[in-house]
């Protein structure tokens, strides 16, 4: 055995496999005229309630479906199914995030051409999902008013990869003494220009603006 190591050049992205699957998914979604949105947040920020209301309110006009990732249980899928939209749970087991291959597998057998919007609710986690492209068109990061205004500074990477920030649970903003100016400034510090909306899924505040934003994105996605 030669004892002197030999240096060989590699130049390979470690997440190449995920990126290849994500790119193929994105192309497939676009070919079917489907607009895909992923939701990321810390656990308990209100992703599932927000998504349930989104699915319910989009349905008169649009055809929607959702995938929901969790380490375990089917609880979220059961909650979302109340919206009457097709919903599938992805149990990640010990994995703290979704990967493109899990999305691909969960969609096996689905006729995507019958859909306008596909929502992918990631595992509640502000760290790991940042590294994985899922083939989505829009990544929405949620921040609830009870979490503290400095969340964007604590988790800059996920906010930096997002395309839209949604501040949730606005009905509790006063009780939580939420400082909107500080939250907005922190979001802008880690992702200048990031569009930020405020909602309360409970009272319906801000939902119209969010839904019309999604509709405008769908039209743009269909534009030649």
């Amino acid at each position, binding site marked *: *055995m*030669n*004892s*002197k*190591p*030999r*240096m*060989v*050049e*590699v*130049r*390979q*992205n*470690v*997440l190449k*496999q995920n990126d290849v699957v994500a790119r193929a998914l994105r192309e497939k979604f676009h070919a079917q005229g489907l607009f895909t949105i992923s939701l990321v947040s810390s656990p308990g920020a209100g992703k599932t309630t927000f998504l349930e209301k989104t699915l319910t309110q989009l349905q008169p006009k649009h055809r929607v479906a959702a995938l929901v990732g969790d380490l375990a249980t089917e609880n979220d899928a059961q909650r979302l199914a109340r919206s009457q939209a097709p919903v599938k749970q992805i149990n990640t087991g010990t*994995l*703290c*995030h979704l990967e493109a291959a899990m999305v691909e597998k969960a969609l096996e057998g689905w006729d995507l051409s019958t859909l306008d919007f596909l929502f992918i609710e990631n595992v509640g986690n502000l*760290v*790991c999902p*940042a*590294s994985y492209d899922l083939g989505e068109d829009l990544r929405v990061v949620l921040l609830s008013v009870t979490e503290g205004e400095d969340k964007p*500074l604590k988790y*800059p*990477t*996920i906010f*930096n*990869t997002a395309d839209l920030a949604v501040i949730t649970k606005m009905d509790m903003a006063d009780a939580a003494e939420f400082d909107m100016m500080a939250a907005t400034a922190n979001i*802008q*510090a*880690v*992702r*200048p*220009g*990031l569009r930020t909306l405020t909602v309360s899924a409970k009272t319906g505040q801000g939902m119209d603006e969010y839904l019309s934003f999604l509709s405008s994105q769908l039209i743009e996605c269909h534009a030649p």
Partner: protein
Amino acid sequence: MHELSIAMSIVEMAQEESARRGGSRVSSVHLKLGALSGVVKEALVSAYELACEQTELEGSELKIEDIPVVVFCPRCQGERTIASIQWFCCPECHTPTGDVVRGKELEIVALEILT
């Protein structure tokens, strides 16, 4: 903590590459790690040791090159390295900018192999 699955991918890719180049052992892996990669360096280093156990990479070293975040400043019309990922703005003129040029890398650059 997704560093373990990332470390396992690194080991797997290094094994494949080493086999392709006729290596019998890998003594080190050179990795570029961007500040915006979403990977925690310390966690990755410990996970790497675990992932290398009982493979031809056992005892190998993960040599990490930290890549800072470089943005394009629309005002200076140039690339600038930001000091903190908590503040995306040009370090010279303070214009906010989210136009990331570098810093998302998670890339195996090279291997040192023994044949």
